[in-house]
């Protein structure tokens, strides 16, 4: 009888498309907005993810997220190194600097200072120049998006110079890097150079990057660092989630996106529910006839639910497909953050299931109470 139910549904083109439209509308809006939200959240932690190598980040106890820099004294590096279980520890500078370009314009930049000896935390996607070139005087490596922001439409060219804090910076490499939440250009340089580029401060050490010795659980090492130094030590994942949690709690981003997602859900439910209900009412005599012919309430219930499921699957597929298409398009054509993890697909699926259930329930009630004797009434 499922086949009959589907033919009943699909045969009524206008209603069918109306119901599917409701589900697609909701699915597109939920998947697209949730993906942009995830994209934004992903930007907030891009700099943590891009720093490969260290399993542990050590920072001031009051740091709440990656951009919340509270500098440490340089001596903290040695204290961290002395904690049992720590395999190695290096300094890491992160700060904002103002660059003066040759054109006379100014540009805000994110400065990342890597350990002079090891370059731990260096970018992995250098496609012009090399990390070793950082040894040259005043050398910096810039991310490609930053380069194009500063010199739009111009080909990548090494050797360009600009000033930061009255000091010359020479471009020796260009790298692929994840976009950041602030969207400023990123320059990588040696720690000693970064300190010189930065505005003068008594303390300059932003983070200590460390790793646990083989066989030592990083979380335990973090506990030890905390106990011995009084600093905050987090594993890479913990720091990622700490940063995301900060933006979730302290920014209005979740509420703004949540409202849009909720609106999509409500409007989709209203359209799909109302159209499905009208479709059922239109066919109520047919359902009555089926009941008279011996279709049980369970069979009718299953028919209506299967119609809902059919609409849900088609609407979900189209909705997620359109949202993905949107993401693919904007990723290539604009700088809109878009990241669709499986959780977004699952969330959209749950929302579609709820929409379909709500829409079906309105109709189910109608068909279950219909008397088979209705067919004898002219």
């Amino acid at each position, binding site marked *: 009888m499922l086949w*009959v139910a589907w033919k009943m549904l699909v045969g009524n083109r206008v209603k069918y498309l109306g119901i599917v439209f409701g589900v697609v509308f909701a699915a597109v809006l939920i998947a697209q907005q949730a993906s942009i939200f995830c994209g934004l959240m992903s930007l907030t932690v891009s700099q943590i993810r891009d720093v490969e190598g260290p399993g542990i980040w050590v920072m001031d106890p009051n740091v709440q997220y990656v951009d919340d820099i509270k500098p440490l004294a340089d001596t903290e590096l040695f204290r961290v190194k002395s904690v049992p279980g720590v395999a190695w520890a290096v300094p890491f500078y992160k700060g904002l600097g103002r660059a003066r370009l040759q054109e006379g314009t100014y540009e805000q930049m994110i400065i990342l200072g890597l350990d002079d000896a090891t370059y731990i935390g260096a970018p992995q996607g250098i496609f012009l120049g090399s990390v070793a070139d950082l040894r040259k005087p005043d050398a910096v490596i810039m991310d490609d998006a930053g380069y194009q922001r500063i010199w739009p439409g111009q080909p990548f060219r090494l050797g360009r110079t600009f000033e930061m804090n009255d000091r010359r910076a020479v471009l020796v490499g260009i790298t692929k890097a994840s976009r950041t939440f602030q969207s400023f250009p990123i320059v990588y340089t040696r720690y000693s150079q970064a300190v010189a580029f930065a505005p003068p401060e008594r303390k300059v050490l932003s983070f200590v990057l460390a790793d646990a010795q083989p066989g030592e659980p990083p979380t335990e090492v973090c506990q030890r660092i905390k106990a011995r130094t009084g600093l905050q030590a987090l594993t890479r994942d913990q720091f990622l989630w700490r940063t995301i949690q900060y933006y979730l709690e302290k920014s209005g981003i979740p509420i703004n996106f949540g409202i849009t997602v909720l609106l999509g859900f409500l409007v989709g439910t209203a359209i799909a529910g109302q159209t499905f209900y009208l479709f059922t009412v239109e066919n109520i005599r047919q359902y009555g006839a089926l009941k*008279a*012919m011996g279709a049980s309430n369970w069979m009718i219930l299953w028919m209506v639910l299967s119609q809902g499921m059919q609409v849900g699957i088609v609407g979900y597929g189209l909705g997620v497909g359109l949202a993905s298409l949107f993401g693919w398009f904007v990723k290539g054509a604009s700088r809109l953050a878009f990241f669709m993890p499986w959780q977004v697909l699952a969330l959209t699926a749950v929302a579609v299931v709820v929409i379909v259930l709500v829409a079906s329930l309105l109709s189910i009630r109608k068909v279950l109470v219909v008397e088979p004797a209705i067919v004898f009434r002219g």
Partner: protein
Amino acid sequence: MKQRTAPFVAATDASHADVAVRVRGVTKDFGSGSALTRALRGVDLDVPYGDLLMLVGPSGCGKTTLVSIVAGTLEPTSGDVVVLGQDLCRMSGGRKVKFRRDNVGFVFQTFNLLQTLTAVENAAVPLLIAGWRRRDAVEAAADVLDQLGMGDRLPNLPSELSGGQQQRVAIARALVHAPRLLVCDEPTSALDAENGRITMELIQNVAVQPGRAVIVVTHDSRVYPFADRIASMEDGRVDAVASGPFPVGFSQG
């Protein structure tokens, strides 16, 4: 057309073994208090196997209510209803659904065909409800439609068929699962004279069989000659049951 000799018989004359439908003292009330409407006021009626019984009477006399109760789609307020040896009043809802599925065929005034299914798919619906595989059900339905002269219309949607053809599809649907009771509600009222005649001939020739009873609710006096017996209703009661032959027919206009 079959010829009948006995003019009138009492409602309770048929013996138990020969009776497909036995109704005794059935009442049916709708609403309550000051809004109470008594649709049936103690109906007695027998329908023997192999009979085509017509229920006639003015609008509101209770024909549709009675046939709904006999078909197991409506509960009587009081009385006994035994159909095909089964006491419908003591049957649970679930068993009544199965009873209808296995034993009752329906032909409706407005056909009630599913507009998005083809003729053969519509005719196959009772078999699908009974759990048949789709291919088998469609094959069986095609056979019945062929018997009814609709073999060349199997893939047509109801909207592509005339009223008479739609009613033939409805008859095929009613007979495809070989029910022992066929209930027809005003089967000719939406048809012109020619199609009405063809429909009644099909019902008489194909549906009326020794092991099956047919009840036809009608206002249309032109179909009376097709009846073995006619039960006349008035004000919620069966007034009289007459046996054919009945003179007025399509040929007489």
